[in-house]
């Protein structure tokens, strides 16, 4: 039927290190040195340790709902390492703890967030990121906006934003991609396709063969990568980030990975997920894969692992202690941080701790927290 072809497209898939830790040497060139791999491996192990402890904190009632990052560390670290700390912006969802920590977020902030404390979002001066984002699929627009601002301000900075496979179903995803492409903002859209959005598998989330092809709609460079392969993730991220920095506009990366844990601690994946599927993916665990590689190269040993596990344990204990050591926020905070200046009515509510008009003193109203105006 055609009288001519209006459009053609092709998307590549990249893997550099396979599930057994075997490298494709040619592809690995100019990615990470063995020294870097070694360092990032240890970083990942420490993150995994904290992630597992966070899970236990929830189970023992010391923390609220928590979404484990387990299995997705290579995707977070590989891409995070490709971004410049203090220069590039990280706009995360909630399964990129490793990248946030690497970019300077104190590790206990994430715990604080899940402990129901906004101060876990109080990003320190000089750290360029937005807080964990609860409403799915909404933060990518902020990444487009932030990177647009960088472009307008002529700062050579890029924003990389993280989101899941499920998030790509939201309208905001589409609008963020379209704005980025239209205004050629320096944005990297990093999709952690972990195959599930709570109980909904990727194939019920969309009818497309890949997530990567969603970027074709915007004429945007796009690639699919083994998300459990640290080197491949680093390579495609680095390329996308540097292209963006050089004025080449936005890119899309689909990191094919897997959520090895439940969706959150409020979830029980056994209801809906075949244990065989989980098992199969355990074999592709990004941490195990790196350990195999490093061991084969003679760079790692069981003794080193034992020492690392010990050190991680100590670190985790400290991080948990830091988070738990922080008392409830002052009640005044909820009033003081609604606007830059507290409006008169809010001032009254703060002073009286009541919303009815016949006022008295605040202690009468049964506060749980000590009251200070």
């Amino acid at each position, binding site marked *: 039927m055609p009288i001519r072809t209006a459009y053609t497209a092709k998307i590549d898939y990249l893997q550099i290190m396979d599930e057994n830790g075997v490298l494709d040497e040619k592809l690995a060139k100019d990615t990470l040195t063995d020294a870097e791999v070694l360092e990032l491996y240890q970083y990942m192990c420490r993150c995994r340790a904290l992630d597992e402890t966070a899970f236990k904190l929830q189970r023992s009632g010391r923390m*609220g709902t928590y979404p484990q990052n387990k299995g997705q560390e290579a995707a977070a670290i590989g891409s995070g390492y490709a971004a410049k700390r203090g220069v590039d912006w990280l706009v995360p969802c909630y399964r990129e703890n490793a990248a946030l920590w690497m970019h300077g977020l104190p590790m206990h902030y994430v715990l604080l967030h899940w402990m129901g404390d906004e101060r876990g979002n109080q990003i320190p001066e000089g750290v360029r990121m937005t807080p964990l984002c609860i409403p799915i699929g909404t933060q990518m627009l902020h990444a487009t906006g932030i990177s647009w601002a960088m472009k307008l301000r002529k700062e050579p900075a890029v924003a990389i934003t993280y989101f899941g496979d499920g998030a790509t179903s939201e309208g905001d995803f589409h609008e963020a991609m379209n704005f980025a492409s239209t205004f050629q903002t320096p944005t990297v859209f990093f999709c952690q396709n972990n195959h599930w959005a709570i109980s909904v598998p990727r194939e019920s989330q969309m009818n497309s063969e890949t997530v990567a092809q969603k970027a074709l709609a915007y004429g945007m460079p796009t690639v699919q990568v083994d998300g459990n392969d640290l080197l491949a993730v680093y390579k495609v991220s680095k390329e996308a980030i540097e292209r963006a920095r050089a004025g080449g506009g936005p890119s899309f990366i689909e990191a094919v990975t897997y959520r090895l844990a439940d969706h959150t601690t409020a979830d029980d994946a056994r209801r809906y997920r075949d244990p065989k599927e989980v098992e199969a993916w355990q074999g592709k665990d990004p941490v195990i894969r790196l350990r195999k590689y490093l061991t084969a190269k003679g760079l790692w040993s069981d003794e080193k692992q034992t020492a690392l596990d010990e050190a991680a344990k100590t670190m985790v204990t400290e991080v948990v202690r830091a988070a738990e050591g922080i008392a409830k926020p002052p009640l005044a905070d909820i*009033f003081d941080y609604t606007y830059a200046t507290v409006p008169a009515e809010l001032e009254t509510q703060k002073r009286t701790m009541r919303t*009815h008009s016949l006022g008295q003193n605040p202690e009468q109203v049964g506060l749980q927290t000590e009251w200070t105006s």
Partner: protein
Amino acid sequence: MSNATEQAVFNPKLRRRVDEGSGVNQVECNLVEAITLTLAQEMDRDERVVCLGEDVGLNGGVFRATDGLQARFGDQRVFDTPLSESGIMGTAVGLAMGGMRPIPEIQFEGFMGPAYDQLVNHAARYRTRSRGAITIPMVVRVPVGGGIHAPELHSDSPEAIYAHQPGLKVVMPCTPYDAKGLLAAALEDPDPVLFFEPKRVYRLPTRDWIPEDRYTIPIGQAKVVTEGDSVTVISWGASVYQCLEAMDQLPEDISVEMIDMRTISPIDKDTIIASVQKTGRCVIVHEAPKTAGMGAELATILQEHCFLYLKAPVQRVAGFDTIMPYYKLELEYLPNAKRVAEAITQVMAY
């Protein structure tokens, strides 16, 4: 057990009995179980009824409200949708146009944002826009409110926003009995109904015995929970329980008329006006921020219609005019029994 009920028996784990006096089949359940049971009965009754939403299928919903429905009715009646609230709401509008009776679920009230446009600018407007040629019978189910130590945007109370929207009805039951009757009524309603489920009382420690067979409670009727003549206390949703708790903290001589609105829109003016004309005093309690909340509308109706009866200004005990805080502070934000009792004391002393 009637035939209809036999067909509808759904959750075999629930205890059942026949009420000796009335001969009515009863089932013991909490609020969320009452909802599941009703959904099953209604789907059984009317094959146009379909459920759609995130994780409502195999997983049975994040609160288990649709637990077992897909197993029973199949995946062409209960749909796991993509993660896309506007998509859920907008296709539900289309499904209704196409002759179905969709029950979209929005997982938490905080995620109604993306669905806002389809709800207020389409669902609510189609009857008037087309002068009756196109109508949107659908029931939007949404867990609502705070108090369960959930993350951000899982604890808000946006009922006033939707009560300001003509063309929508807004319901918020707080007991298993009301939930069952109002949900059945909502599904009978030819117009879109926003069905808010106060998640804090989904699983109140106690279960109630309620009739198992289908019954409806008219939308738009408040319930006088306790009669009294000193002061009227009006609330809805989970706050009703804080009000009841407050009553225990009051001196014996204060006799409270407690009203559970049950329906937020349309407002049952008659019931609240009659009560306040009797008591002359009123306290309104809700979780949402005070300013421009539903308390304002109810207080205004009362001053319009009970002006000469009022012995004190109507008082509002509400959420503060701040964002609902993360959970460490949420119990400070939510109206508690002490705050309610104190307001009642004040209004009595005026």
